[in-house]
């Protein structure tokens, strides 16, 4: 798996002319800085309105937004379902869970109509909101909360905690590992979105990396450089949170 990635990376450091004449390269060339800075800041797209740098920024905002909102909404939804005496909590939970069966593509028209009526086309809010509630994350948190012994809540109650404080002081820190996992999962999910941003944006200003991959026209080494760079944000997030994840595993028991 590493070798193809390496070949793309090595090739991206050569000039286009060199690759066109000599094929893919296994060893590094000397055009690294030149190629990458050109790709990052060159205006591209049909109207030459956006740079690769801006695409990265857009993708990053979108993915972070989706991941953060998913974590927050599903944490709270699960809290409500498990800890409050809601009469039909189980049925409500399964209703939420059933939405897993409905992929984004199926509800893409109604979602678009709602967003356009709210005047959110061509905004980050429009890109983020419709995919920022996750049934699977709610499921994970719900199962995790159910495994927390009742005595903990009872001890906290005797210690005078309110329902809000119990959530902030207990459930959030206790589910730290789970939050890291869901965050990684949702970040990658958000970063990889293609169809939704394609429909939601008419302005090139809001293009994301995945959209850019398809429309990148340029020399072959530029495209390779873009591909390599497009892999960096998820890798950073995973590496960064992996640490937290492992730490969490060792701390909580």
């Amino acid at each position, binding site marked *: 798996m590493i070798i193809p990635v390496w070949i793309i990376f090595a090739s991206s450091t050569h000039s286009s002319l060199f690759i066109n004449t000599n094929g893919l390269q296994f060893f590094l060339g000397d055009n690294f800085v030149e190629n990458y800075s050109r790709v990052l800041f060159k205006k591209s797209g049909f109207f030459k309105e956006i740079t690769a740098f801006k695409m990265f920024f857009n993708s990053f905002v979108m993915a972070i937004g989706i991941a953060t909102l998913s974590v927050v909404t599903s944490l709270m939804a699960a809290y409500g379902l498990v800890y409050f005496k809601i009469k039909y909590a189980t049925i409500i939970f399964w209703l939420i869970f059933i939405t897993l069966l409905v992929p984004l593509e199926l509800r893409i028209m109604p979602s678009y109509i709602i967003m356009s009526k709210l005047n959110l086309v061509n905004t980050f809010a429009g890109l983020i909101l419709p995919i920022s509630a996750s049934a699977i994350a709610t499921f994970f948190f719900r199962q995790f909360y159910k495994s927390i012994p009742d*005595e*903990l809540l009872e001890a906290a*109650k*005797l*210690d*005078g905690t309110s329902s809000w404080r119990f959530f902030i002081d207990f459930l959030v820190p206790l589910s730290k590992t789970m939050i890291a996992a869901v965050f990684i999962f949702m970040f990658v999910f958000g970063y990889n979105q293609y169809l939704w941003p394609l429909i939601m944006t008419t302005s090139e200003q809001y293009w994301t990396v995945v959209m850019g991959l398809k429309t990148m026209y340029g020399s072959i080494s530029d495209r390779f450089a873009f591909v390599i760079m497009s892999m960096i944000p998820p890798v950073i997030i995973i590496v960064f949170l992996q640490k937290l994840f492992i730490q969490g595993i060792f701390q909580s028991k």
Partner: protein
Amino acid sequence: MGFLELQNITKIYPNGTKAVDETSLNIDNGEFVVFVGPSGCGKSTLLRMIAGLEDITSGKISLDGNLINNIDPSERDVAMVFQNYALYPHMSVFNNMSYGLKNRGISKDEINNKVNDVAKLLEIDQLLSRKPSMLSGGQRQRVAMGRAIVRNPKIFLFDEPLSNLDAKLRNQMRLEIKKLQRQMGVTSIFVTHDQTEAMTLGDRIVVINNGVVEQVGTPKDIYSKPKTKFVAEFIGSPQMNLFQSKIENGLAKISDIQIKLNNTLNIEDACVGIRPDDILISDKGEYSSLANLVEYLGSDMIIYSSIGGQEFSCKLSSKINLKAGDIFKFDISPSTVHIFDNVTGYRA
């Protein structure tokens, strides 16, 4: 009027199970009361109702003269030690102990002082920065107690706090709890299913069975004058021997042996209870029986035997030379015999 007063407390769960039935109890200030009974008898439910963790179906609970039926658990001024300690796993020992104080809006300096004082008292002052997962069972137990003590409550509630410890540590902690309670003079209620714990800890013991209080009294009272057959069987180790018998004019007949009692009772369907250590082995004994099995316990030994198909055990010093298969002679003093009416279950 007691410090803690329970009046006709009843708990019926939504599925119709009656966990506690019309229980009334008065507990004095500074008293150490133990609720004891087999598992599922309602003792924990009763404790949890006092703590406010369980709704009361009917009845009244008042603490220090105030009705607390509908008061939030945190405002009842009670502290509880749970069976599995329920320490907050993500917080350090210090934070575990100070969390309740912080929620009450007590100043930082005061919290520091209080926690440090209690930590010293319990000898856990070296552990304040550790997480619960880094502590041993006994240390966790201390932290759980520290968390209760630091709040300076009107009542301590202990919900089988020693059942997760090994035997040696359990005895040690038992002594320590007793000592601490004496030292601080805080009213305490301790729930356990272990009669040894109940006997050693309590100023008074409340024996509960099937949601009903069978007997309330000092350990001595309960041991020497059990009010019902259940209490007789439950308190004391080894268990009291119970023989089905017929009593005619103060003469108890257990198959072919007869015991002359100190009274002139007449009970058709009676139960005669004799504690294993009240069966006195002697060469001149009036009765004799065959030792089926001998259990050697170091200083004591327990002999299992039977009279007319009814098994019984006796406890005696292991200095006596007796093996399984031997015939032994014994005496029973009429004053140590407990008589119960099988129909009512009560002491006759």
